[in-house]
């Protein structure tokens, strides 16, 4: 452990008169898997959008490896080493699985991404990198199929592969098991555990059993505010958390 990779300092987000996130400060240690939980409308998605750079906070600072990055455009976050996957699958539907991932590989190589003349196949390493990322999520056999024609579980896996292809130091996964069958969920959990052994991972997840077994640390949001942060055991016994979240009878879900 070499100190925090990402630090959120008093960040908040208002949409007009509505405060989606209010004065949240959390730091994320390198190498840890942190799960973000909270009831619907707690601000998890907003929090994720701020941390991944998709949306700029209206207040506060975000420090990535020491530098204040809040307000930078989304593509800069990715190039610095923060990548995310989406709760609602967000791929390039008409392009092949291989091309979906290759595009992400291409984007992080400054020498490749804007090339106007040389054939895309002649940039060394990109296609191989894309294929080995597909192999990692078990999709190599499907490399030539358009993303739109893949099964739901395969699309969820491709979703992760596209995020991984950015070679992120910090990987943000937004409900990766959404809509998956129990077997697919099991496979996805194994994959996430493997990914987390090599990089810092943030995870939004509803399936509590999965979260409790997987995460090093849990951050609980409630009504746009930070309610608690700590180890799974500490969270399980936290009185506030039990009252607003676990006490609502959702602990057994998933």
């Amino acid at each position, binding site marked *: 452990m070499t100190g925090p990779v990402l630090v959120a300092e008093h960040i908040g987000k208002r949409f007009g008169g509505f405060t989606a996130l209010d004065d949240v400060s959390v730091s994320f240690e390198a190498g840890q898997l942190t799960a973000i939980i909270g009831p619907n409308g707690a601000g998890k998605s907003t929090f994720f959008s701020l941390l*991944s750079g*998709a949306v700029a906070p209206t207040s506060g600072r975000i420090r990535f490896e020491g530098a204040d990055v809040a307000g930078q*455009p*989304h*593509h800069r976050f*990715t*190039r610095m080493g923060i*990548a*995310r996957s*989406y709760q609602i699958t*967000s*791929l*390039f*539907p*008409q*392009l*092949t699985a291989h*091309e979906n991932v*290759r*595009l*992400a590989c*291409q*984007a*992080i190589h400054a020498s*490749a*991404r*804007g*090339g*106007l*003349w*040389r*054939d*895309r*196949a002649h*940039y060394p390493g990109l296609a*191989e990198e894309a*294929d*080995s990322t597909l*192999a990692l999520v078990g999709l*190599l*056999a499907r*490399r*030539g199929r358009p993303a739109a024609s893949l099964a739901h579980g395969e699309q969820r896996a491709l979703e992760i592969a*596209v*995020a991984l*292809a*950015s070679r992120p130091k910090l990987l943000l996964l937004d409900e990766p098991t959404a809509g998956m069958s129990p077997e697919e969920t099991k496979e996805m959990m194994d994959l996430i555990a493997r990914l987390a052994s090599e990089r810092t991972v943030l995870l939004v997840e509803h399936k509590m059993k999965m979260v409790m077994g997987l995460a090093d640390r849990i951050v609980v949001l409630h009504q746009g505010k930070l309610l608690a942060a700590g180890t799974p055991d500490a969270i399980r016994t936290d009185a506030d958390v039990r009252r607003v979240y676990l006490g609502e009878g959702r602990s057994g879900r998933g």
Partner: protein
Amino acid sequence: MTRDIAAARIMPSGADWSATAQRWRVPLLTVALAALPWIVPSQALAVNILIFGLYATGFNLLFGFAGMLSFGHAAFFGAGAYGAGIALARYGVGWFGAIAIGVAVAGVLALLIGALSIRSRGIYFSMVTLALAQLVYYVAFQATDWTGGENGLRGLTVSVIHIGPLALNFLDPVTKYYVILVFVVAALYAISRLLNAPFGAAMEAVRENESRAAAIGYDVKRIKLIAFTLSGLVCGLAGTLDALHLSIVPIDTLFYQTSGLAVMMVLLGGSGTFLGPFVGAAIFLLIEDVFSIWTPHWQLFVGIVFILAVLFLPRGVWGTLAAWHKRRSA
């Protein structure tokens, strides 16, 4: 894992066919276009297919590959035509210099209109491009000293083209056709390279899913502006060639109907395909050529064919053929 990758590579798929087609698309189109004057009913029609095919290809670069529907591409076609025409008629610039000036004027205009219009998306983007292009039309309409106003720009006849020691008679329709063909093929080669290059892939990413393209590290605004400008350059080149071909620049060149022409041709032929725009231009102009002989209402027939194509061949004529072949060989 390495063996899996090797195995996946060997697996035959539709990708083989499309890779071959991609490698040969420029030579194939060049051969087809070189034979065109002897296939279609008239020389004039062949030249029009050449010029408007290139114009539609330039439009398709933006619409078919980057997913941005511009209703203002007449501005770039017209800027190329007027840029070259004014250089020839008012400043006595040589033919080659005039082409270069026309393309440059179109490129600068595309950069300007692009920078203003890419701030909006979808139908709003289309409306901004339409409004700005109409603005260009009215400026050209009023600036009669430069453009000739509603009478069009005249006095730019190029009769001989000198290339080194060679003097080509540009008034001879066949010679003219092949001189123009050289420029069209050079542009097609460059476009083909662009589409196969990483930038072509990035444009498709923007078309398919703009927010994910940003999320994986692409500067979407920059890609859109570059795509818009390159598209304007190609349409500008088509415009300069049209000015040289007609020896006059009619004010209609800048009118919004010219923008609509590109949309119709690309939808007829197949957007997002390399050869589609030429197929669409050929179909459109062939119908015009055949039906305008015996009825002034030839647009009625183009309209019917267009409606049928949109209803029954939403991928366009060439797009449907290509997709059908791909499915069969997959």
